[in-house]
């Protein structure tokens, strides 16, 4: 893969926005079938341009307007905001108080930095293949809950470009949820609580909620490989002291002694599990059973969400297919069927796909004399020739699902409408084709 040089960004972005960015699919997503009038036109975008110039309240009339603006401004970063009551680019003309954010997808942001207290391999903005499992577990746990507990059908998971993942929940009813309900959902999904000052961040009550139980069974599949082998959390005294801080004092001596005797994290963990589930005779009111073991597993592996990102309807979040200005990686959708195989280091960078495109273009130019093919035709095939293609496919699958359920809704509604129409007019005997079929 080509090394990425931030200085080349302006040139690379120019090529990216002209030939590679999947405008058609992007518009198809945010337009949501054109069912609600002006839904796309009232959507806020924000651009970060060269030299950190940040402009908010951008909005566009249609796909070609979006394309032209993006190609003109060459943004380094693109964020998506809410759908407002008026066109965001005219918000200054609206009476004070009347310009309101009305709808937005429910979004989640999971950041590797929030796990710094429990990962030994990296810290802050760095990631590696060892700690990426944290993201895999987070995606599995959160996605299961969103799908099975809340019944959300259209969830798009996107790699953020550097150190985390985002989730966009796009169901129609979800876009209308209030800020209070969004906070409630994040609270439901939160188990790890506390900052620097708190040692033990997970406390389970005797009644374990099905959500917690199911999350633990997901973590169990990864725990040995991730925590005991990869992170080696019981490797030496320094690391197992951190675990002991989560365990009642009375058990410390016994555990310390036995840890010395064992030779690997695996063995030590087995011992800890046994010791933790025995009923401690001296401590009153302590539950006998796997709670302690679970609390440790959860503190080391359970997802940590940023509530502020999810709760505000007007919160701006990085757009899929946007470029990360520091790493050059494209924010690509993650295929849920293959989440275990997802490798953030295999995600194409803007320089690599531009190089791929150049290589293909020059080889094509050698083959074809006739350059008169229209620009559009080029563009629609261009991304397909680069390593961006499979990710766009994932995105298209997501869009297909959105379309299918929209069709289902429309049929339901038009069924009742059609009856009344046929009573009144004889002309309209054919059902109207829904608008989204154009895309």
């Amino acid at each position: 893969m080509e090394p990425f040089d931030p200085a080349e960004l302006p040139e690379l972005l120019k090529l990216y926005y002209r030939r590679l960015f999947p405008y058609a699919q992007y518009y198809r997503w945010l337009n949501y079938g054109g069912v609600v009038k002006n839904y796309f036109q009232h959507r806020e975008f924000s651009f970060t341009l060269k030299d950190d110039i940040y402009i908010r309240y951008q909005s566009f009339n249609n796909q070609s307007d979006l394309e032209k603006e993006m190609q003109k401004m060459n943004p380094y970063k693109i964020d998506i905001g809410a759908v407002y009551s008026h066109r965001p680019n005219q918000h200054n003309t609206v009476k004070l108080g009347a310009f309101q954010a009305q709808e937005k997808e429910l979004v989640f942001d999971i950041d590797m930095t929030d796990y710094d207290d429990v990962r030994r391999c990296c810290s802050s903005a760095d990631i590696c293949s060892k700690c990426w499992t944290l993201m895999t577990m987070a995606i599995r746990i959160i996605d299961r809950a969103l799908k099975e507990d809340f019944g959300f059908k259209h969830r798009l998971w996107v790699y953020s470009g550097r150190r985390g993942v985002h989730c966009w929940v796009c169901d129609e009813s979800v876009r209308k949820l209030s800020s209070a309900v969004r906070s409630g959902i994040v609270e439901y999904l939160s188990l790890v609580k506390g900052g620097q000052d708190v040692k033990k961040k997970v406390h389970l009550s005797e009644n374990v909620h099905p959500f917690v139980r199911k999350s633990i069974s997901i973590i169990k599949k990864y725990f040995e490989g991730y925590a005991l082998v990869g992170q080696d959390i019981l490797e030496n005294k320094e690391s197992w002291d951190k675990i002991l801080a989560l365990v009642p004092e009375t058990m410390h001596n016994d555990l310390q002694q036995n840890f010395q005797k064992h030779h690997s994290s695996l063995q030590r963990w087995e011992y800890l599990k046994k010791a933790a589930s025995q009923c401690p005779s001296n401590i009153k009111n302590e539950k006998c059973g796997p709670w302690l073991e679970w609390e440790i597993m959860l503190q080391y592996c359970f997802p940590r969400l940023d509530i502020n990102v999810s709760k505000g309807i007007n919160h701006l979040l990085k757009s899929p297919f946007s470029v990360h200005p520091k790493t050059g990686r494209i924010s690509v959708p993650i295929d849920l069927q293959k989440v275990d195989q997802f490798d953030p280091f295999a995600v194409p960078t803007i320089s690599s796909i531009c190089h791929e495109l150049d290589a293909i273009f020059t080889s094509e130019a050698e083959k074809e004399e006739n350059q008169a093919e229209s620009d559009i035709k080029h563009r629609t095939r261009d991304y397909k020739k680069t390593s961006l293609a499979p990710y766009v496919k994932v995105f298209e699958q997501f869009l297909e699902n959105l379309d299918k359920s929209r069709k289902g809704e429309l049929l339901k509604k038009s069924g009742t409408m059609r009856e009344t129409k046929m009573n009144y007019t004889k002309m309209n005997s054919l059902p109207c084709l829904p608008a989204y079929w154009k895309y």
Partner: protein
Amino acid sequence: MEFSGVKRRKPWLIGDQRKASYPHSLQFYLQPPSENISLIEFENLAIDRLKLLKSVENLGVSYVKGTELYQSKLEAEIRRLKFSYRESLEDEYEPRRKDHISHFILRLAYCQSEDLRRWFIQQEMDLLRFRFSILPKDKIQSFLQDSHLHFEAISEEEKNLREQEIIASSTSLGGPKLELEYVYKIPFADALDLFRGRKVYLENGFAYVPLKDIVAIILNEFRAKLSKALALTARSLPAVQSDERLQPLLNHLSHSYIGQDYSIQGNAGKISLDQIDSLSTKSFPPCMRQLHKALRENHHLRHGGRMQYGLFLKGIGLTLEQALQFWKQEFIKGKMDPDKFDKGYSYNIRHSFGKEGKRTDYTPFSCLKIILTNPPSQGDYHGCPFRHSDPELLKQKLQSYKITPGGISQDHISSSFLNELGIQLKKTTVEQQNKAKENGQSCLYSSALPKKRKTWRSTYQQDINILNVYTQKGSLKYRK
């Protein structure tokens, strides 16, 4: 408009119609009354209900809500003032009618300001919660139906399929007695207070709520409806106030509640930048002291910390120029580019002073807000140390601040934690809303009425009781 019902001519309800008009001892006050009453009765009803709501408030402060003692005292109070409360008693028409009419009268008086509305809604909710809790089980279904609340009870088979999960989720169900309980299936968004704390089983977007937990949902419905109704009332108020007979009474009613007024306008006070370091150890509440220390050490604060500390500094008298200078100096020490600061951070500082965007002059966060919203996570230093820190670490910290160890002891928290909090907070919030007069916001844990300049430590040592309540293992939210 509904409230002209007081003037409209309608016949008196007689005989058997009386019982039918008030089938239950409690109601949601969906329909306003439509009869004639005399002015004297109008006034008496209003005053009686106000007395009732005041005693609801006082009992809520003095006793834990829901306990035997609280309930018996409240029942005695209701009976004394001759309002309705119990379903099974005979000849409840008069008390129920009184309850109905007086509620609507008080709506007129308490719709006018945010504070009044909040107080009114809070007391009415407590009253309704009490009445609902003493309603016998068989009457609950009929009450729900009569109030047009569409909660669908699920069938036996559906219950059996999910029995394990429902029992595992609900704290209110003791043991496997699910066959006897009704379980209701409602859309998850309607059960917000239940699912946010994982107190209910969710499946495919629906919450399976046992009867005991339905109360919380009903109360939320009630609060939402009442809130909307009060807003509507406020809009229609001018027409009512034009009636000279009612105006003096309504004014008198709404003003009699406020109690002590802390809005004495004094000098906001000014401080200079070099004073901040010494003030932080002398007079800042612990949360701000912690933030200041973190800022000095790391030359950086994350967003939550910047908001909480920045607004606090504004509250104690820092001007915009001083604030910009203060933050810039500190961030530059952390090897930040001055230009980057100007681009990224100075806009936000000006925004919080009300000079950008929608120009709201934000007030400093109240203790309630700091404690209940935006808990700190890894890398954060904001929040309230009494709420968000481990007791051991907190103890160490306080000892390093030189508080005598005797003042710090560990007691078990009663479930009045949040009740106390609510009441204490009101006093503190009112003060804070009127600019901190002294150096340092009065921390919740200091004496509730600091009128003179006092250092935080001296006031704190007087309030060891409160500290005993708060410095203990775990909090309600974690352990429940």
